């Protein structure tokens, strides 16, 4: 694997290798006095964020540091991007400065693919195609490490084999890269994914996804899914009215206590965060044992360690 740009197209054995490695990473670090591995000593990981983020950026940074990589954060504000430098030149500069991996978050879908394409170009002056690109969220397209950490969390709660497990993905699918990445990854892992969303918040072309779609949350919860993945309502990406009011959204698509009570005992509730409590998910549900929101964050570090390990530790078999 040269880059991690999307979960679409990831083969099942690749996905499972990443998830198994993430579990090993967790296991390798548990109960230790020193939470540091020398694995990526001498390698440099740059996080290049054109959008704000706390958990994803910190998670990559911690993952890199725990494996002894040098991690450097670049955010669009306060960098040459503010002076009008193009994405291509910024990426090229980071590569020339010695980055072994560039972790990119960008508001435009496809930006990490473009960077990977530029850096892979034969004869790239500085890198010879040795820079790995990781998509840390691009527009409304994909967020593969989030999907991997969700899958890692589900594997911990439901068992390693997700074949036949039924996962509901609820809310703003249209603006959610998390939903898209999860739909593809979970399907690859053998799970059955159902999207539950108002028709206005479903993307065009959703029929091509490996999922089923419904607009009725209560009816779907009554079928007893193994996991319910709540999405964030991405107000910052909405230009126009997608639903009448926050109140109505909460009534139809929020996971309140009454709805959570109808779930089977083993069912897990996930939320990628940051959660809008009271609208997407009731506080009592988010804080209950059923919710795995904190575990998702922890799994995120292990998953990102696994991704960096697979991209940077082994031989370049390009």
């Amino acid at each position: 694997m040269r880059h991690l740009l999307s979960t679409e197209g990831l083969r099942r054995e690749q996905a499972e290798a990443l998830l198994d490695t993430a579990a090993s990473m967790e296991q390798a670090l548990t109960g230790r006095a020193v939470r540091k591995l020398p694995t990526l000593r001498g390698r440099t990981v740059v996080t290049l964020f054109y959008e704000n983020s706390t958990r994803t950026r910190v998670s990559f940074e911690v993952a890199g540091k725990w494996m002894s990589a040098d991690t450097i954060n670049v955010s669009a504000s306060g960098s040459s991007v503010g002076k009008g430098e193009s994405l291509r030149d910024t990426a090229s500069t980071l590569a020339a400065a010695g980055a072994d991996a560039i972790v990119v978050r960008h508001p435009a879908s496809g930006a990490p693919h473009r960077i990977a394409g530029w850096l892979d170009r034969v004869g790239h002056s500085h890198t010879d195609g040795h820079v790995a690109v990781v998509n840390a969220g691009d527009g409304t397209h994909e967020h593969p490490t989030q999907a991997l950490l969700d899958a890692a969390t589900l594997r911990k709660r439901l068992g390693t084999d997700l074949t036949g497990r039924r996962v509901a993905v609820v809310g703003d699918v249209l603006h959610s890269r998390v939903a898209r990445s999860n739909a593809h990854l979970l399907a690859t892992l053998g799970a059955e994914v159902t999207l539950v969303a108002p028709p206005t918040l479903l993307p065009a072309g959703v029929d091509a996804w490996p999922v089923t779609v419904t607009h009725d949350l209560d009816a779907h919860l009554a079928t007893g899914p193994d996991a319910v993945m709540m999405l964030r309502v991405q107000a910052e990406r909405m230009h126009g009215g997608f639903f009448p009011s926050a109140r109505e959204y909460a009534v139809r698509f929020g996971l309140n206590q009454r709805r959570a009570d109808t779930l089977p005992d083993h069912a897990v509730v996930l939320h990628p965060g940051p959660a809008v409590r009271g609208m997407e998910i009731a506080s009592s549900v988010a804080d209950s044992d059923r919710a795995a929101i904190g575990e998702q964050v922890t799994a995120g570090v292990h998953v990102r360690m696994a991704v960096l390990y697979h991209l940077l530790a082994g031989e370049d078999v390009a």
Partner: protein
Amino acid sequence: MPTRRRGGPVPNGASNAEGERELLSSADLARTVARIAHEILEKTAESGAPVVLLGLPTRGIHLARRLAERITAIDADTTVGVGTLDPTLYRDDLRRQPTRPLAETDIPAGGIDDVIVVLVDDVLMSGRTVRAALDALRDHGRPRAVQLAVLVDRGHRELPIRADYVGKNVPTNRAEDVAVSLLESDGADGVAIR
């Protein structure tokens, strides 16, 4: 029995059609494990420190468990901790080969501070695995002493490392392959060279 050779098929005696030569039979292997168990007891008893056997994946783990069983069978008063240590993330050659799957690391609950750790592996060759294991150990605590037990020492060391307990010294050609089979992972006990 094992003689030094320069590769190629073995001409005589114990070799089979595939050019494989038996170094230890199942019974030899059991006797060897028993002898190492005695040696570990003898060598560690005087210090009075607790002993923890840490197996290196994959077959070292099985050997460590067998050694612990033997030690307890010989001397019921001795308590031996058993665990596993995967040094993969500490290897210095990660970038030279495809990424390898990671195995389990399981340090006994009491930790390894002030105990005698015996690293257990099936075959000792370059010594790089052991070096990685020593580095890994350092991140888990500070043992009083670290010793090394191996079933087969085949030479070709690349680092100044030697084993405290050796089941069998087998001078080998680099092109040869020493295959250790254990009941737990391979269905039968034995050591062969091919």
